[in-house]
């Protein structure tokens, strides 16, 4: 397959910096469209359904499934880049969504305080909370880059432990340990 995504992925591997942005834009564009369709389907106020979104995008853009079996032609590095980009895209979509909600309903419904990493990303979360999480994640990145990546893949891209392990090329046990640690660390970090 030699669509724009594959080309962007290959370019990244060959070291083209601009390709990174191109990949991101492509993935985000696709995810945006899908998220809107999903929002349109849901009853108002029901959350933004992000699980399955990335899976779907992957299938659509790269022609395979994200899970263990259908990785097909996509190389290991490319997968990692793709999911990294997708997680980031979902995060931005959530922030955008939160902003538009608060603009729409100024002073309206109160958002839920804080973010629960255990559940799905909740659409009613306030933009400020997303930003706080983003900053905390950046600090975690400096301390333990892999743990931060696990959070992006698990929480934003909605990958399972096993899938995240596949993408990162580590065991699922390592992913679990990183995940447990990251959740606690972020919770401690965002409380202070």
């Amino acid at each position, binding site marked *: 397959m030699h669509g724009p995504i594959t080309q962007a992925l290959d370019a990244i591997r060959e070291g083209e910096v601009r390709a990174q942005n191109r990949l991101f834009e492509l993935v985000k564009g696709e995810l945006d469209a899908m998220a809107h369709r999903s929002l349109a389907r849901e009853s108002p106020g029901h959350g933004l359904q992000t699980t*399955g979104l990335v899976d779907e995008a992957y299938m659509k853009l790269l022609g395979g499934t994200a899970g*263990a079996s259908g990785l097909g032609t996509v190389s290991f590095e490319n997968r990692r880049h793709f999911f990294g980009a997708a997680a980031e895209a979902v995060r931005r979509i959530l922030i955008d969504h939160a902003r538009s909600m608060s603009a729409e309903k100024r002073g309206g419904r109160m958002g839920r305080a804080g973010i629960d990493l255990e559940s799905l990303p909740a659409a009613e979360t306030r933009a400020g909370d997303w930003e706080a999480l983003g900053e905390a994640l950046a600090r975690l990145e400096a301390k333990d880059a892999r743990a931060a990546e696990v959070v992006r893949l698990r929480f934003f891209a909605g*990958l399972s432990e096993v899938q995240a392990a596949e993408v990162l090329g580590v065991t699922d046990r390592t992913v679990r340990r990183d995940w*447990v*640690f990251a*959740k*606690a*660390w972020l*919770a401690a970090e965002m409380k202070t």
Partner: protein
Amino acid sequence: MDSAKHELVKRLLEEALAIKPADRSQWLYQQMHAPDVRAEVERLLAAAVAGQETAPIAPKHADASANSRDPKPPERIGPYRIQHELGRGGMGVVYLATKEEGGVSRRVALKIVKLGASTEEILQRFNVERRLLSSLNNPGIARMIDAGATDDGRPYFVMEYIEGLPIDRYCDTHELSVQERLALFRKVCAVVHYAHQNLIVHRDLKPSNIMVAPDGEVKLLDFGIAKLLRPDLIGIPFATLPEARLMTPEYASPEQVRGEPVGTSSDVYSLGVLLYELLTGRRPYELKARIQAELIRVICEVEPERPSLAITRSCEVTTSDGTTRTLTPEETARNRGGLPSRLRRDLTGDLDNIVMMALRKVARRRYESAEQMSRDIQSLIDGRPVIATAETSLYVLGKFVRRNKGKVAAGIAVFLALAAGLAGTAWQYRRAEASSRRFEESTLAYAAAVGTFVGEVTGEIRFKAGSLESRRMLAETSIRVLDALRKQGIEGDELVRLRATATEQIGSAKGGVDGAAAGDRRQAIQEYQKALAIWKSLDQTEPEVRRGILSNLVKQSEMWHNIQDPGADGESAALCAQAAPLAVLPAQPTFEDRRARAEFLRELADVEALQKHWTQSVAAANESLEIRRSLLAEAEGRHDAPLIAEARRLVYVGVSRLIWLRKRYSEIEALAPPSLEANLVEAESLALIALKSGSSQNDTNSRDWVTAATALAMWRARHGVDPERSNSREIMLRCVEECERLRNADLSNFRSLIDLARCRYSLGIVEALLGHFDAARIAYTQGESLYQESLQQRPKDKAAATGIQECKRAIEYLGAAGGGKAIEGS
């Protein structure tokens, strides 16, 4: 913090989260890591509390609370109206739902993939369960009705809704008798067997997955983690599913927790756990730890208590609805429509064996199938012989050998080889019809060797904790060897003496002599009486036979007066009278003659005291001690180290007996020579030498020393002068240490728990006598809680009940006296 430390923090955090919250900080402290590591883990733990993580293998009820974050249930799924949640597992939620059909509302159970759990693996599993259920057609398995997917693509399927109770609650609610429970259990076996025949291993058999409908029919639920032995047969395209370690540890087989491939015998094991629970109201193991390594160790290595024994204790139980409460022996029996004694009789023997056979650690040693287990239960009901037997002596001995590596093990192994060789050789010779002289020679050589080994090995393991059972089996094995020889027509005096000794060894093991557990003294006496008859069949003018009879009578007397029944003392007195002429020393007494007399006198001193013959008692005790001292002197003269050690123990026993009598009876204290301290010091120093020179595993030496040292410390704290007086505290602290070591060496040993409790209490007395009242209060309190723990383990234990009273009284006394006094202790 460097990266090694960071990784350590991550590991500790994960492990700590697997432990009960209340225990975490203590656990963390015990891990002994640098303060900054500990502080970081504590900070993260505090933050993580909101988002509780479950252990790598978690019970489903725990995981239900951790994951119950689905928003309120949807109103409808497909054509079904959702009523409420029935339960949830690792991947799906089950709702009670209704469907309108021709004006009739029909109730069904609807299982749907959990929100946010739609990973490929889970979807695969879900699909497998759906296909598998539709392929099974048995009245004992909840029928599949419908399947579909929601608009957002979550798959679900619909099963018949079973109105009923989980099997454990059904049995208790209806107070089913043991017979009725067995009949119900056999129905479960039949369903499980049906699944096995369809090449499906359920892997999660437990009460909450086995419902009993009001009509008494069983229904097996939740094939969510079932395994297909041949996935291709029902059109599942992938050959193997991920061997996810989803399971309920309490019911999981050893191979399952180890993550090894499981077969149908794994379900047989879970059936064993289920039967255990239905019969006793509790599970073979209470798994408190959620640390994987600990779970694996317990499930793979610890032998569960036999059902008939388990029901005699109270315990904490968690029922299938997740509540915890205390279950007493009376309630256990009442729920089964009878009295504890009756239940115990019902379970002892065949039923014990059936349950234990299903629970064997090694898969191939269990029942071959659920059906075979079911048939064995039917045999039991019909009064026919069952397949299940207690583990063979060779198996149990083998385990003992593995647990006790080294000299003891080598001795037993050689003995077993000999015993086997003896039988084999006898047979071979008979077959070859070799000359009878050669045959007899070699057989006798073997027999002599066997005898030596029985003696040495039982001597060697005599004082080891937990050796009673092995001692009994070893002795029983030698009896079998002797039987085999007798059948061949070989039986000389040598072998008859061996038989008498072995019979006595069986008696001592049954009676708990030198053992960690209290035995059955009446059974012991029966064995001793058998042995006595054997001794008497021999030529009684032989010194060895005479000593044999004497020692037998002394043993019997000892057993009797330990029974502490009215009339038992009379039995002891009669036996001593019978023994007295045999204990008279011949003109030229040997070491053994004098030793036998000393043993007799020790027993006589006790028996005379029981009859209030104070002068005679003191005379006997003193003569016994004198003989013992002379034996030690003789041994030292011979420079024979093992003999010296043995003689030292003889003196120690003599001194302690005298001390005991002096403390027990004020009349004897009035008659005895003035200084009790001299006796106490002698006993303590002898015990200390034995402790230091003996093998470190010799628990009896440790207990002896603790007893002697405690007595000495208490005496000195009360009557001594400094520096000995203040030194008594150091002695007690060392005693506590030693008791704790013994306790930790074998947590199942009840006696070591009582010893530790007693030792803490004694420390309290010494502290109080020395004026350290706060320390005394702490020690009493610790003693009391240890006694409480003992009483929980054995609600009827007198020592524990008395101990609690003593501690309470001591604490009160400290308070009442304004912290000024020590209670008079023993």
